[in-house]
């Protein structure tokens, strides 16, 4: 881990030596646009469980769009400039950058890696940042919140927080396409098991779920609804067939696609696709004994609250 010298004298104590934070517990938190509006529940539940796990999430000041959605596909370099601005802010803050959104995570992480590997891209982005009197030296670690919970916080601490074990709950751990792809730094890129391990620590069990890293349809749910519904339908159908009581996600777009159109998706694939879908943070928070408000369960479009209050879960 490289160290940075922080020029900002007023920065927090943990920022003075390393972007990892002095004890690995303080992060710059990048919410991303979805969590500000449509997927507010993910933001709320992330902050709630982070507090329980002793992780301090300091919202990155003046953060901007990460460059995901259609932008990165059409103007990749410009998208990376947007991400790089966030990275530069995180570098100034002197903490590693964590986000719970897989879409943000991928673009931020790619921009970070590609800048380190490609001198031409780096000089282009450096020039663009300089126009705004900013610079990025490449010292920030970009992390997904799920990765931090499972790989940094770890089993012992997570288990210690469990007051309502998920006994008997069968979960389909749907990681989506962007959590482990393309780099597979901390999980098998094609077949991650990060959430499976987590559910196990929470006292629940995961069902064998072959489609755990397949595409949910992404933005096609709006641009090509037929394709989007077919892809989402496959996932919900497979989860049901595997005997899952619910699906958990670690990405706002996955969550939206899986929970938002179940009736139409069901019609498209010719079977009942009704299944509770919730963020892994909500499930974890429930196991920690947090109340529905702290986890924004009321925002759910599927009967999540009912699922979590079933008799079996309380036993």
């Amino acid at each position, binding site marked *: 881990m490289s160290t940075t010298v922080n020029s900002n004298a007023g920065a927090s104590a943990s920022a003075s030596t390393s972007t990892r934070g002095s004890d690995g517990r303080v992060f710059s938190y990048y919410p991303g646009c979805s969590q500000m509006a449509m997927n507010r529940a993910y933001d709320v539940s992330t902050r709630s469980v982070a507090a329980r796990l002793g992780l301090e999430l300091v919202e990155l000041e003046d953060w901007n769009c990460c460059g995901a959605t259609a932008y990165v596909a059409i103007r990749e370099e410009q998208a990376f400039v947007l991400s790089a601005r966030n990275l530069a802010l995180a570098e100034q803050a002197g903490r590693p950058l964590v986000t719970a959104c897989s879409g943000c995570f991928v673009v931020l992480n790619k921009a970070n890696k590609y800048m380190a590997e490609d001198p031409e891209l780096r000089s282009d982005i450096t020039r663009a940042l300089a126009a705004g009197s900013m610079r990025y030296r490449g010292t920030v670690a970009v992390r997904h919140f799920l990765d931090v919970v499972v790989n940094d916080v770890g089993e012992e601490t997570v288990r210690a927080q469990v007051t309502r074990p998920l006994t008997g709950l069968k979960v389909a751990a749907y990681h989506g396409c962007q959590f482990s792809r393309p780099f*597979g730094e901390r999980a*098998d890129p*094609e*077949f991650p*098991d990060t959430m499976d391990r987590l559910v196990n620590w929470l006292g629940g069990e995961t069902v*064998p779920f*072959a*489609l755990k890293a397949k595409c949910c349809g992404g933005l096609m749910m709006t641009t090509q609804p037929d394709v989007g519904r077919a892809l989402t339908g*496959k996932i919900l159908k*497979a989860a049901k067939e595997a005997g899952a009581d619910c699906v958990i996600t670690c990405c706002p777009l996955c969550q939206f696609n899986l929970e938002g159109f179940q009736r139409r998706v069901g019609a498209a694939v010719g079977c009942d696709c009704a299944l509770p879908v919730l963020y892994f943070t909500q499930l974890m928070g429930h196991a920690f004994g947090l109340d529905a408000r702290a986890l924004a369960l009321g925002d759910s479009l599927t009967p999540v609250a009912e699922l979590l209050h079933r008799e079996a879960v309380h036993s």
Partner: protein
Amino acid sequence: MIAQDEKIGVYVCHCGTNISGTVDVSAVAEYARTLPGVAIVREYKYMCSEPGQDLIRKDIEELNLTRVVVSSCSPLMHEVTFRKACNDAGLNGFLFQMSNIREQCSWVHDDRERATAKAKQLLAAAVLRVGQQVAMEERIVPVRPETLVIGAGIAGIEAAVRLADAGRKVYLVERLPSIGGHMAQFDKTFPTLDCAACILTPKMVSVGQHPNIELLTYSEVEAITGYVGNFRVRVRRRATSIDPTKCVGCGLCWEKCAVKKVPSEFDAGMSMRTAIYVPFAQAVPNKPVIDREHCLHFTRGKCGICQKTCPADAIDFDIQDEILDLEVGAIIVATGFTLFDAGELARYGYGRLDNVLTALQFERLSHASGPTGGEILTKSGERPGAVAILHCIGSRDENHLKYCSRVCCMYSLKFAHLVREKTHAEVYNFYIDMRAFGKGYEEFYRRVMSEGVHFIRGKAAEVSTVAETPEEEGKLIVVGEDTLLGVTRRIPVDMVILASGMRPAEGTEKLARILSLGCTRDGFYLEKHVKLAPVDSPSDGIFLAGACTGPKDIPDAVAQGAAAAAGALSLIDKGRVIIEPITSEINPEVCAGCQLCIMTCPYTAIHFDSERNVSVITEELCKGCGTCVAGCPSGAARQKSYEDSQIYAEIEGVLA
């Protein structure tokens, strides 16, 4: 400073266009004339050729040259050649210096002007250095006639038998309870479809019976010291708990053994073995060992049924590991390979889904003495209606094995043939490229194609269990792009065979440290020269054979075993070996007796003379690595031919 009366000859090589293509050789030669002490400068197309060497020899004789510099390729390539040319003409070969303007200059640069400038610097360094060099004599030491062969797979067996047949003593060390290696596990062999056991077993038997082979199974090499011709080897013989002089291999003990659920290594986990066991029926030696990790006597301190049963009273729980110290002249390393762990690629379901097998598991499944008696059956005991064979599992993959494992295409073809022959199932091969490189291999490929096997060009993406059609229900569905048709294929099958690649055997790295061998980035042992010295290691007297240097098929492994035996034999038969005089010395006047050098010497070549209170180097053991010189705090340790004056002269040349 170069003495007034020195006459240095400088020869700049074009190496065809290898050097002259990038370096202005004439300009370099012209520059050489301005250097101190230089009496003659010549450039020539190929200095290493006979006429090139003649130039040097003639100039030494006619011009009375006192020192020689050749600017050409790496010293690894031709230092010996030119040193010999000097010696032939009466000039001590250690008054010769080489400057490398090929590997370290022309091959790695493309700017002609700057490459030429660098070549001049390198040459100046060599000229100034050679002026400081002193004549030395090579040492001649005797060679012991015994050879140590490490690893008793087919390569090691071949090497051992060849040497033993030539009347030389061989110590054959094998880590497992039996010799035979991977080949003993195979069913048939491509492309001839010989039964592996039929061709291997006779060789194994002859190893077991050969009067010149001392077989040390269940044993590992722990330490090696010494040098070419005179190695000292420490071998740990693991306790077998069986007295081999009493055991007749009757088999009563393993029939009675209470532990019956240890996954059989030999059957790749497809069957269970007992705690006292012979790995397979044709094992050599055909005497059991007790696996102390699983034996109840050792784990719980009870049982002992085997001891009570044994009619020969051969079982002795008190037998301890034994340490053997051997002396040998040559060493052949033939430690082989291990399969890439298919579980690392979770998308293919190995270890997660039933009926997804590795290549070795299929070999055992198809083998007449395997868990099903050679019938190809699914886990539920049925004949498969369709089988998929997935090539390049782990191989040719940026994230895993970057290289091609060479044999997988061919054994996959063999598997396809065996499945067709035994079950008439449909067989689907998912391949990237078909590599049928050996004698009779392309013909075998054609034959298998004509047998109705399906070939789908494209690496399989995953093995799924999510059915999309009624035909896919309950099947393993192999999903992959058919790159010839440009479509995604979904093939429902009953069995998937993963053609896992080959990686270095477990312990390769540890043995590399013991033997001071180098490894490639992939972890395989590094040969002295990949083309021209493929069975020599960079260390004299140590030879390499088989898959320990990279994936190989049986014919190549056998050829290398024989070649390594020839290398060892030529060393042994000469009976003596010339050793470079570049060693370290410790000046007893300066040595403070701190013994730091003794701690750092990787060859245990230094001992402490407590009477004089100084460290002393045993010249025969010293390899001239220079570690002691770098470590010595008082400057008492010096390395011949790497004196400070010589290094400084070289630096001065580079900076000139």
